[in-house]
C-alpha cells in the first residue's frame, strides 16, 4: 500500500495528537478522540462554574493553566465533563471494566454518600461494579454528580470489606475470630438476653444508621422496641440536624425540609447559611448556580469561612463564629423595618408576631455589627435581597446547628421564612441540608424524641395501641436516651450492652476518648458494618453487612424523596443485608421477624406511617415519591405547607430568640483560637468508605488544619509544616494549610481522619434542647512541631 501521509518526527505535533490532559486518577482528555464539540468546556463553565477549561488556539479544549494537569486548575474532579462527552475523548480512568460499555449490566440506584440522593447507574461486570454513570432518572440531580458519586464507589470491592461474622469467644481480652452466622447470631442473642435479664431492658441501647435503608432502620427500631424492650434508640442525626428538627417542629410543626431540588432551581433569592454547599452537597450547589446564572437569582452567603460559595455570592456576611442568631435577627429587623414583611401571610398563616417584633426591635444593624462584626450596610443589602425576592429559599447546615444555641439559630431561620412568606409556594421554602444518604428516612423510621416510626408519640396511648396491635407486644415505657446520653451511660455504667449498626461513634462523636472509655466498659457490644471500623474493633461481635450496591431498599433524601436502592452485585463473602441480620438476631432473642424482601418491609412501613402510606417499591421508578404520600394514587408532595402548618393551630409560630453567647468553650489565654470542624469534598463521615476509594484517598490522603496567614505568623507556622492542635480534651498532630479561607482567630480541621481524629479535640457540650454537639467552637491552640 502506498503512503501519502508523510509525517516526520521533527514536525510540530498536530494538536489532535497532543498528549492528554490528565486528572489522575479520575479521568483524562485524549485529543485524538476529541471532536471539538466543547461540551466539556460548557458543562464545567455553565453548570459547575469552575475555571478549568478554555478553548485553545487549535480549537481544542485546553486547561486555563496552559499545562496538561488538571491539578493546576480549580478542577475538583466532579467528572461532569466525562459524562457530557459524546465520544470517548474524556476517558474514565477509574473504569475497571473490560467489556465494551454497551455489553455491561447496568443498575440504576441511588448514591450512598450524601443526602442529595443522586440517581446513579452502576455498571457491573462479572459481579463487580466497574464504573459509575450519572442517571437522568431523578429530579434530585437531573444527571449531575460529584467526585464521590462518580469516582468514590471502589470502596464496595475494597479488600478490607468484612466477609464473615467475627466474635470474641473468650471474653473481652480474646481476639476477634471468624465465626459462622449461626454461632454468631446465637451468641449475640444469648448475651443480649443475659444483659437484659440481669440489668433490665433499659440497660440495652441501639444506634441505627443514616447510611442504611429505610427498611433496615425500620426493622432495627422494631428489634430495639420489641426484642430488646427499650426506647433507647438514636442515630447520628443527633450530631448534625437535631437542632433543626427540634426548631422546625416548634415553628412549623414538622422537622422536615419544606422544599425540593426543583424549587431550588426556581428560587430567586437564597440565604446560604452555615453550609459549605459546594463541598458537602455539590449537586445542590450546582442547582443554586443554575438559578443564579440562568435565571438571575441572588445569593447571600453567611459563613465565617471563605467557602467556595462566597465566590458566587452577591453578598457575603462573615460573622464572628457563634453570632448566627444576631445576624439572622438583624436581617429580620431590616426586612420588617423596610416594610417588606409579608403582612398578608403573617396575618393569615402565623402566630406570635407581636411578641416577636417587640424583641426584634433591639437588633438594629448597628447593634448586630457590634455583636457579629458584620458591617451594617452589608447586612442591609443581604436583607433586602431576601425581603424583596419573589421566591426566597433558605439553605443551612451544620454552621447553624452545631452550636450551644443550635435550636435558636434554626428558629431564627424559620422566623425569616415566615416573616417574608417565603414558604408553601413553588420556588420558596427552607432546606436544612441533610448530610447522609438516608438521614431523613432514618429519622422518619425511628424517630427522635421518643417517637415511634412516622413520628408517632410513644407517650400517646392511641399511638402506642396502634403499634402494640401491629407488633403484638407492649411498647416499652422507659425514658429514652439520646446518642450522647447512651455514650455517657456506658461510661457511667447504666448502659451495659449496645448494638451499633453502620455507625462509627469512635470517629463521629465528640470527645472520643470518653466514648472509647464507655464502649470498653460495656458488657457486650455488637457492631454491624462494611469495615472493621474503629468502633467495630472494640466489639464483641461484628456482623459483615452488605453495602448499598448489594441490597434492595429505599433512601429518603434531603427533599423527603423516597428513592429505590437496587441491588447491583452480590455482597462479598458471607455478608448480608442489614435487615436480614437484624431479623435473625431478633428471632433468636425471642421476637420472631422475617420478611421475604425489602419491598414487604416497605408495605409494613406504609401500613403504619401515614406519610409513607402510598409508597411501594414498584411505584418508585424515575424520581421516586416525596412524602407525604397518602395513598397509592397520591403523586407525592414536592413542597410542604401550601395551605397550612401541621401545628396545633395550623399556623406557623414566630419564636423569640436572642443572641446568647453561652460561652460554649470560649477562647481564653491558654486556648486563644476557635477550632471549627467540618467536612471536605473528597471525604465522607469518618472516612470508612471514602478513604478506601483510590481516587478520593489520592486527593486527600491526610487531614490538614486550615490556619489564617495572620495566625500562622503569630504561631510560627508555615504552609506544609506539622502543627499540633491542643484543646482541653486532647491533641492531634496534623499538617498545616495556611489560607485566608479561615478567618483570623479560627482554625478549621476536618473530621474524616481516624489517625488524627478531630473529635479527640471536641467537647461533649451541646445544645440543651436538641443535644446536638457544639462541634463548631472548641477553644484551642496550635503550635509548630519542631523537626527532630
Amino acid at each position, binding site marked *: *500500500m*502506498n*503512503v*501519502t*501521509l508523510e*509525517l*516526520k*518526527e521533527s514536525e510540530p505535533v*498536530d494538536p*489532535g*495528537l497532543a498528549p492528554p490532559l490528565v486528572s489522575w486518577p479520575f479521568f483524562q482528555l485524549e485529543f*485524538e*478522540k476529541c*471532536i471539538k*464539540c466543547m*461540551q466539556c468546556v*460548557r*458543562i464545567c463553565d*455553565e453548570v459547575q462554574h469552575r475555571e478549568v477549561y478554555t478553548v485553545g488556539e487549535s480549537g481544542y479544549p485546553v486547561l486555563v493553566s496552559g499545562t496538561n494537569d488538571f491539578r493546576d486548575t480549580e478542577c475538583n474532579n466532579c467528572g*461532569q465533563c466525562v459524562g*457530557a*462527552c*459524546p*465520544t*470517548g475523548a474524556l*476517558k474514565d480512568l477509574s473504569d475497571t471494566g473490560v467489556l*465494551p*460499555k*454497551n*455489553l455491561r449490566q447496568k443498575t440504576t440506584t441511588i448514591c450512598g454518600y450524601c443526602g442529595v440522593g443522586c440517581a446513579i447507574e452502576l455498571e457491573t461486570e462479572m459481579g463487580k461494579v466497574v464504573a459509575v454513570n450519572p442517571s*437522568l432518572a431523578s429530579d434530585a440531580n*437531573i*444527571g*449531575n454528580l460529584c467526585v464521590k458519586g462518580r469516582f468514590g464507589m471502589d470502596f464496595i470491592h475494597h479488600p478490607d470489606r468484612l466477609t464473615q461474622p467475627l466474635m470474641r469467644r473468650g471474653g473481652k481480652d480474646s481476639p476477634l475470630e471468624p465465626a459462622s452466622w449461626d454461632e454468631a447470631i446465637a451468641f449475640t442473642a444469648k448475651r443480649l438476653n443475659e444483659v437484659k435479664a440481669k440489668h433490665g431492658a433499659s440497660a440495652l441501647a441501639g444506634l441505627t444508621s443514616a447510611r442504611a435503608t429505610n427498611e433496615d432502620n425500620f426493622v432495627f427500631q422494631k428489634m430495639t422496641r420489641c426484642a430488646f424492650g427499650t426506647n433507647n434508640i438514636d442515630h447520628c442525626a443527633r450530631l448534625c440536624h437535631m437542632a433543626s428538627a427540634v426548631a422546625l417542629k416548634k415553628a412549623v410543626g414538622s422537622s*422536615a425540609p419544606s422544599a*425540593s431540588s*426543583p*424549587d431550588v*432551581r*426556581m428560587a430567586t433569592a437564597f440565604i446560604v447559611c452555615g453550609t459549605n454547599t459546594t463541598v458537602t452537597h455539590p449537586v445542590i450547589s450546582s442547582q443554586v448556580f443554575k438559578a443564579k446564572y*440562568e*435565571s438571575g437569582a441572588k445569593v447571600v452567603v453567611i459563613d465565617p469561612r471563605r467557602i467556595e460559595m462566597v465566590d458566587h455570592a452577591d453578598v457575603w456576611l462573615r460573622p464572628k463564629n457563634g453570632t448566627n442568631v444576631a445576624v439572622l435577627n438583624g436581617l429580620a429587623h431590616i426586612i420588617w423595618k423596610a416594610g417588606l414583611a409579608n403582612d398578608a401571610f403573617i396575618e393569615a398563616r402565623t402566630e406570635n408576631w407581636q411578641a416577636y417584633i417587640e424583641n426584634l426591635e433591639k437588633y438594629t444593624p448597628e447593634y448586630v455589627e457590634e455583636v457579629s462584626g458584620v458591617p451594617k450596610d452589608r447586612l442591609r443589602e443581604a436583607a433586602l435581597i431576601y425581603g424583596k425576592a419573589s421566591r426566597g429559599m433558605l439553605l443551612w447546615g451544620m454552621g447553624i446547628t452545631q452550636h450551644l444555641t443550635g435550636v435558636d439559630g434554626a428558629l431564627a431561620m424559620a422566623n425569616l421564612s415566615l416573616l417574608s412568606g417565603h414558604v*408553601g409556594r*413553588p420556588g420558596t421554602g427552607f432546606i436544612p441540608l441533610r448530610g447522609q444518604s438516608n438521614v431523613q428516612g432514618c429519622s422518619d423510621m425511628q424517630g427522635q424524641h421518643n417517637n415511634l416510626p412516622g*413520628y*408517632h408519640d410513644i407517650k400517646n396511648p392511641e399511638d402506642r395501641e396502634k403499634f402494640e396491635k401491629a407488633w403484638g407486644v407492649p411498647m416499652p415505657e422507659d425514658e429514652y436516651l439520646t446518642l450522647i446520653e447512651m455514650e455517657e451511660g456506658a461510661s457511667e455504667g447504666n448502659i451495659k450492652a449496645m448494638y451499633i449498626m453502620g455507625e462509627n461513634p469512635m470517629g463521629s462523636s465528640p470527645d472520643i476518648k470518653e466514648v472509647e472509655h464507655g464502649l470498653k466498659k460495656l458488657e457486650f457490644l455488637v457492631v454491624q458494618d462494611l469495615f472493621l471500623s474503629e468502633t467495630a474493633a472494640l466489639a464483641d461481635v461484628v456482623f459483615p453487612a452488605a453495602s448499598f450496591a448489594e441490597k434492595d431498599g429505599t433512601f429518603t433524601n434531603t427533599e423527603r424523596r423516597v428513592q429505590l436502592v437496587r441491588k447491583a452485585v452480590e455482597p462479598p463473602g458471607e455478608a448480608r443485608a442489614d435487615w436480614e441480620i437484624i431479623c435473625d438476631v431478633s428471632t433468636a432473642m425471642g421476637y420472631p421477624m422475617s420478611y421475604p424482601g425489602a419491598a414487604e418491609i416497605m408495605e409494613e412501613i406504609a401500613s403504619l*406511617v401515614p406519610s409513607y402510606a402510598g409508597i411501594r417499591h414498584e411505584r418508585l421508578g424515575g424520581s421516586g415519591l*416525596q412524602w*407525604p404520600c*397518602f395513598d397509592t394514587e397520591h403523586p407525592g*408532595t*414536592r*413542597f*410542604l*405547607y*401550601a*395551605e*397550612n402548618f*401541621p401545628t*396545633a393551630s395550623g399556623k406557623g409560630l414566630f419564636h423569640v430568640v436572642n443572641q446568647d453567647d453561652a460561652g460554649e468553650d470560649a477562647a481564653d489565654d491558654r486556648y486563644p483560637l476557635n477550632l471549627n470542624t467540618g467536612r471536605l469534598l473528597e471525604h465522607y463521615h469518618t472516612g470508612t468508605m471514602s478513604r478506601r476509594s483510590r481516587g478520593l484517598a489520592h486527593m486527600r490522603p491526610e487531614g490538614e488544619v486550615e490556619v489564617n496567614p495572620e495566625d500562622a505568623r503569630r504561631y510560627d507556622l508555615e504552609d506544609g509544616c506539622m502543627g499540633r492542635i491542643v484543646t482541653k480534651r486532647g491533641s492531634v498532630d496534623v499538617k498545616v494549610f495556611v489560607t485566608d479561607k479561615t478567618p483570623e482567630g479560627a482554625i478549621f480541621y476536618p473530621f474524616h481522619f481516624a489517625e488524627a481524629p478531630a473529635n479527640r479535640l471536641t467537647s461533649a457540650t451541646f445544645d440543651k434542647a436538641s443535644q446536638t454537639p457544639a462541634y463548631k467552637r472548641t477553644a484551642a491552640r496550635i503550635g509548630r512541631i519542631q523537626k527532630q
Partner: protein
Amino acid sequence: MQEDRVGEKRPRDAGTGLGDAGEPGVSLEPCRLEIDGKPVDARAGESILTAARRAGIDIPAMCADPRMKPTGDCELCNVVLDGQADLVKACMTLAEAGMTVRTENSELKALRKDRLNTYLADHNAYCQPPCTAACPAGIDIAGYIDLILQKDYAGSTALIKTMLPLPGVLGRVCPRPCEDPCRRIQIDGTPVAICALKRFAADQAAEAGLPTQPEPKPATGKRVAVVGAGPTGLSAAYYLALEGHKVTLFESERKAGGMLRFGIPPYRLPNSVLDQEIDDILSLGVELKTNQTMGRDYQLDTLKDRGFDAVYLSIGAMAAKPTGIPGDDAEGVMSAIKFLADVNWNETVDVGKRVIVIGGGFTAVDAVRTARRVGASEVTMMYRRTRKEMSAAAHEIHECDAEGIKLELLTAPVSVKVENGRVVGLTSRRMELGDLDDSGRRRPVPIPGSEYFTPADTILMAIGQDVDVASLNEGDLGLDERWGTIEVDESTMMTNLPGVFSGGDCVTGAATVVEGVGAGRLGAFAINAYLNGADDAGIAAAIFQHKPKFFDIGAKAASAAPMNDMPVLDGEGRLAAFENSRHGGDVDHDEAFKEVEVGFSEEVALREAGRCLMCLCQAAGVCTLQSLSIEYGAGTTAYLGKDAWK
C-alpha cells in the same frame, strides 16, 4: 401534632408539584403536536426535542444535554417544520400546539451525514480494534501491546492466555489475520507486527519463568474426554481445566501437539517451545493418554460409561487429499504431510536432489523448505495460480526465495512419469487466470499445448487435507456428507449425540491454527455451560461472539514509522547448513533445522509496540458519534487525500 399530618387538607394541586413543571419557563399547559405522524403531548415551554424524547421518538442530537441550555451547535437535531421553509433545530424550538414535525427525510439524512463527517475528520481514533475482531481467538491485542509497553511481559502473556493458551506457538506460526485490517497500514503502509510482539511477550515471560496462568477454579468433580491433542484439543483442555473440570486428553500419536508437532517444521516452531507450552497446560491437572486411537483402543460410545460427563472431539483434518493424477501411487510420490511428519519424528528421509512440491499453501511452503533441509538441492514449488493467490504468508514465500527455492507459478500437474515403479519426473501444464470462482479468486485455466516435463526424484503433494472420518469408527455420530466433516449445531457446538461436542478442523475442514485454538476455547465454554446444566440457549449464550460494527474513519499518527522487520538467520549461513544436511534423523540438534526467525530484541519490541494506535475506546457501544455515524453511513478518509483504507 404529628408530622405526617402535614397538609392535612390534602392539597390536590399546590404542593404536589403538579401545579408547575418545576422548571422556570415551563408550564404544565398541555399542547399537542404531531411528530412523524404520531400525536405527541408536550408541556408549553419545552423544546420539540424534549417532547419527542419523552414520546420515545429519537431525534439525533450530540450537544443537547439536559443539564445545559441548548445551543444547537451540533446541527444534527434539525427537523422539518410544516409551514416553514428553513429547517429548525429541535433542541431550541419550543413545542407549540398544532405543529407538524418530520424528523427524517433524504435531505436531513444527507445533512446529518455531512455534519458527522466533519466531526470524524477531527476524530483520529477508533472504537474497537479491528485486529481483535479479525482474530479468530478474539485476543485483546491492544491490551497486550499496552502491557508490553509497560514492560509487563508476564502480564501481557497472561492476558493473551485468557483467550489463547499457546502464545509462544502462535507467536511463531499464526497466519496473522489480525494484521490485515490494522489501521497502522493507513499511516505507513505496514501493520503493527502483532504476532511478533506476542512471541516476544511469551518468550520473555518464559525466559523469566514468571507465572502466566491463573489458578484453576475449585474442582467440580466433572470429567471431560478431549479426543485429539492438537491445538484445538489442547485449548479446550486448558479452559476446561481452569473451570475446575477433570480433563483427559486422548492422543493417537506418541506425543501431544497434532499438526503443531508434525505438520510444522522445527525451524519455524522449535519442539522445545511446543513442549513447554503443552507442559504448562498439563500442569493444570490435565491427564494425557498417548497412543490411544479411537475405534481401536476405545469407543466413542463407551466414554460415557467410563465416567466422562462430556466429550470434545478435536481430531483435526489429517488425511491428505488424493490428487487423482496418473502415476501418483508411484514410489517417490507422497503427501507433504506424511513427509513433514516423518522428518519431525526424526526419521531419516532421503528425497534425492530434485524435489517438486505441488500446492501453494502453508504445507507446501513447509514442505519445500524442509526438503532443502534434508539435502535436496533443486526444490520447486508448483502452484497453479500466482503469488498473490497463495495462501501461505508473504514473509514465508519470501524466505523460500532466500533459501533458493524455485517457484513455478501458473502451473498445474498433469501426470507423474514413472520408470520401474519409481518417479522420474512430472509433466505439467501452464495456466492462465480466468474469471472469478466461488472463493473470489480468479480461476486458473489451462493453456492448450503448454505441457512440459520436469525431472524429479521426489514429488510431494500439498493440495489440502480431509477429516479422517474412517478412523472415527463413529457409530451414530452425525457427519456432513458433502464435506466429510463432523456435523454440529453451530450455536452450541454440540453434535447429534448429547454431551458430545466438536470443533476445529474436524468440523470446519482444514483451517488455521488460530481458528482451531479459538474453537477449542469456545468448545470448553460450551461444555462448561452444559456441565452447569445450561439448556441449548444457555450454551449458545456462553459461546456467543459479539462482532462490533465498524465504519471507516481513517487514521493519522504523530510520526511515520514502518514495521520493524523480524530478524532472521543469515541466508548464506542457512544455505551452508543445508549443504551439510544429515537427511533428518535428529531435527532438534540439526543445524539445518535451527529456528529461522530470531525474535525481536527488547528495544525493537518496544519500538514496534509504540506503533500501535490503540484503537480501543472506552465509550465504544455507548458513543453517540459511533452510533450516529453507523446509522447515517458517515465515515471518511477524504482528509487523507486518498482512498487509503480498503
